[in-house]
């Protein structure tokens, strides 16, 4: 599988990206930046980039991560690996992706995944941008992340 018309983010989407617009205006958080990570073809490379992401988050000393994956199928191999690398470091994570009929891989750190299957067909609908992130998805993700960060803060 891969990135199809309904799950791809167009250049226009990146410019209007609701993930960034919602996060940057939220006064309860300190948005440190946007990490763009490619999804390689090869499985070994997927774990290579996930490790780099884990180290990056560790170095930045972040309290929480919201991660989005474009497309579905093999893209979820890296998606799961990214979340695992963050989870292992005790960093709370909320994920956004097209899950459809479920993810091909899962792990213990993937507690909070928001499904972007808007058409509820569980498959690629071939309608451009139909299953992409909207503002309400990000508002929900951020709300969950804030609760997770608060719970973790209390344990310290």
């Amino acid at each position, binding site marked *: 599988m891969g990135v199809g018309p309904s799950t791809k983010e167009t250049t226009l989407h990146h410019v209007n990206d609701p993930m960034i617009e919602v996060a*940057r205006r939220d006064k309860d958080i*300190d948005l440190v930046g946007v990490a763009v*990570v*490619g999804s390689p073809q090869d499985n070994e490379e997927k774990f290579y980039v996930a490790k780099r*992401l884990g180290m990056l988050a560790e170095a930045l000393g972040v309290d929480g991560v*919201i991660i*989005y994956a474009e497309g579905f199928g093999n893209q979820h191999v890296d998606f799961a690996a990214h979340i695992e690398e963050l989870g292992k470091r005790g960093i709370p994570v909320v994920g956004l992706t097209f899950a459809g009929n479920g993810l091909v891989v899962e792990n213990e750190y993937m507690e909070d995944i928001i499904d972007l299957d808007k058409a509820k067909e569980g498959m690629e609908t071939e309608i451009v941008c139909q299953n992409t992130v909207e503002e309400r998805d990000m508002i929900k993700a951020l709300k969950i992340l804030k609760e997770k960060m608060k719970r973790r803060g209390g344990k310290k």
Partner: protein
Amino acid sequence: MFKISMANAKSVTVEMPEKYMEAIERLKKREKEIKKENLKVLPREEVIRELKIREFLVKDVKISDNTKICNNTLFIDSSLTRESLKINQLVKKVTFDVIYPENRDIYTNTIMDIIPIMAKVDGKIGEGITHILDGVVVFLTGTDEEGKQIAEFGSSHGILKDKVAFNMPGTPKNKDIILRIDVVIEKGTGMERRGPLAAHQVADFILDRIREELKKLAPEEAVKTHIFKDVRRKGMPKVLIVKELGGQGAMHEKIIMPSEPGGVRGGKSIIDLGNVPIILTPNEVKDGGIHSVT
């Protein structure tokens, strides 16, 4: 605890010991403190950089004999269809047309990308001043010489109005005019990186001509001006946004930080960058720092 209970009293005098008064004062003070604690202290915001985006309204788009923007109309030189071929020899034919909102009931080849028309007026991507055209977006569509759609995991060819989820962050609004750039690339190259990339380069060349004109527009003609700030809020929980984007090859590729907003030229492919995580600021993304070949 202080309690008096009496019946048929003629005169009653109550003297309160000082320590009771102190206790009441303490209570009052504590109440004030609680109120203070509940008051939310706004975080200190540090503005790192600013991006100013000026919006210019376009009410009509016309194919013409030169490229210019005047009287809320975008004119595009029709000879660009031939001139743009020299950009990449894999592109065999380019056509463009204008699709008004009421004419969306037409056939389209697969939609490779939807691109806003933006140009850098001052500074680099992510800061300074950018001009954007409001009311028009570009659709890049295409096939190869044998008529095969340039698509991999599902194609969006068909009747345009049925093939696009309008009013999403990445698609036109109901009233937007669509400038469609359709390309034909060398047969069989659609599944290689170089094929789709050539199509995007050609569209970028045409857009560059429009950008030149967009840069010339006077600030006072702008209908709206937005200021975006990259801010840090010290003391608040640090949050990182991660975007895992296509980086697998043909049609799974992004161009990072091009020279012009939403452009191709000057940028680096996420694949050539090894797909490793790269930090962009919110304003860099807002200012078209990611071009989607996916």
